[in-house]
């Protein structure tokens, strides 16, 4: 199935420690960034990160696009694309909708 070595990254030389490194660093960043988020914005924050978690769409595309694979694998991938896309679209849209409402005292949208 190495039709998409680029995106799939080739398992041959899977760099376990590199992946763990990235995971650890990203977790630090996440913790530090979220702690700074104003309490005012915790509801939009939840829907924003919700949209970000739909990054699973990347994996869904890779699975869907495989050539010479059983149809049901493609079907699983397509279903996953559908699920992730609802998330992406609704997550970003509703976040923006909420944020548009926040106004400083002297009027004027944001």
């Amino acid at each position, binding site marked *: 199935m190495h039709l998409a070595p680029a995106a799939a990254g080739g398992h041959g030389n899977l760099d376990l420690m590199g992946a763990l490194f990235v995971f650890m660093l990203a977790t630090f960043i996440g913790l530090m960034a979220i702690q700074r988020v104003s309490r005012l914005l915790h509801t939009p924050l939840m829907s924003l990160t919700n949209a970000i978690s739909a990054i699973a769409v990347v994996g869904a595309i890779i699975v869907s696009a495989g050539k010479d694979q059983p149809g049901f694998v493609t079907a699983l991938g397509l279903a996953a694309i559908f699920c992730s896309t609802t998330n992406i679209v609704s997550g*970003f849209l509703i976040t923006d909708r909420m944020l548009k409402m926040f106004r400083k005292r002297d009027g004027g949208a944001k």
Partner: protein
Amino acid sequence: MSAEALVQPLYLVATALFIMSLRWMSDPETARKGVASGVAAMTLAVAGTLAGVAAGGGTHYVWILGAFALGAAVGYPLAQVPLTAVPQRTALSHAFGGMAAGLVGTGKFLLYYGRSDAAALSPFIVVALVAEVLLGFLTFTGSLLAAGKLQEVKWIPQRPVTYPLQNLVNFALFGAALALGAALVLHPLAPWAPWAFGGLATLSLAFGVLLILPIGGADMPTVISILNAYAGLSAVAMGFVLNNKLLITAGALDGSSGLILSVIMCKAMNRSFFNVLFGAFGQAQQTAAGDAAQVYKEDTPESAAQIMAQADLVVIVPGYGMAVAQAQHKVRELYDLLKKRGVNVKFAIHPVAGRMPGHMNVLLAEAEIPYDDLVEMDDINGDMPHADVALVIGANDVVNPAARTDKTSPIYGMPIIDADRARTVYAIKRSKAPGFAGIDNGLYFLDKTFMLFGDAKSVVGELARQLGEGNQA
């Protein structure tokens, strides 16, 4: 290698944009830039993946396009729900997210298995696959159930469902799932492996339900935050499977966000994670019967409006009732009228007022109340003794002084808004029923407290009408 050279830089930029997206959320001034950069990141990620797949000779593009279109068609209306339904929409989205991860994991496993690809099914990959599928499917059913509880769907029990040995049963199921996972790691190509995988998926789906059943509807906000973290972690696991650093990073950002928000909620409720997840809170509350003897004093909106019109500082304490009654626009009217009379009006925002973190802020922002007047609990409490009137609108637990004084109260130790320290307290609610924690509130029995019974929207509307008339007179 050329596809790699094309895709990886795109992923790098997408990662940076996701990080900036979260950083820009630190301030309402820059938050919309955060959304824009999130959208840009996602677009780059999808474009890069499509390009990489195309370079590697992928196919099924028409179908993929169709799935995108369908997803967008369902996602768009989901973004138009009223703001009171945001918690359940978020839960529903987590369900979709978990489902996607679970499906991708299942697809990958079956693909490798079908090809007897022992190299691809290395122990490490299988561990990641198992984690992905377990977390993904568990998030799926758990979030669906949580959404149902929040939406108060009829046939879904709101109250915690408990039965004997519940936690034991759960742990046994979890152990079984882990055992299946371990078996798969050791023998990924055994003839029974697809069955084991199916069993694992089924157990995960069941586990999601069982985990959420014993948790009361009111604890759902904490739970959906934890499910958010799970969805993020399943994306991380997928990143490990695909050796994709973008997935790992974005998933980790999501995971830490869910974790921190739930920690914040737990702290603001003075409860532990463990207690939320396994404590079946709110289930065994009994109200001290003797308290029923105490009496409420009622007052009319007319006289309340008069008192407020003469105040220097009115602090409004909104709670879940304001959200349910959709009273925020009437509150805005009241705010405007009081301001016009030179009264200083502030909103006291408790971190867990309502049913999700930041709930009150979004509702009041919807009514275009400037966010400079929304003051956090810690900042307003010092000013409460100077407030002439504290107007409690559909808030209950977050102003319950028992949290400060009564060691036997289930909410003892939870930080509250000191409404009882204002000179006069007006409290709007529909009945004598307790709030989410199911306990009586001593605030209502104070000498300085007057009840305004009724639906928040109509009572606040009446207050505003009185003030408006007084204005013209």
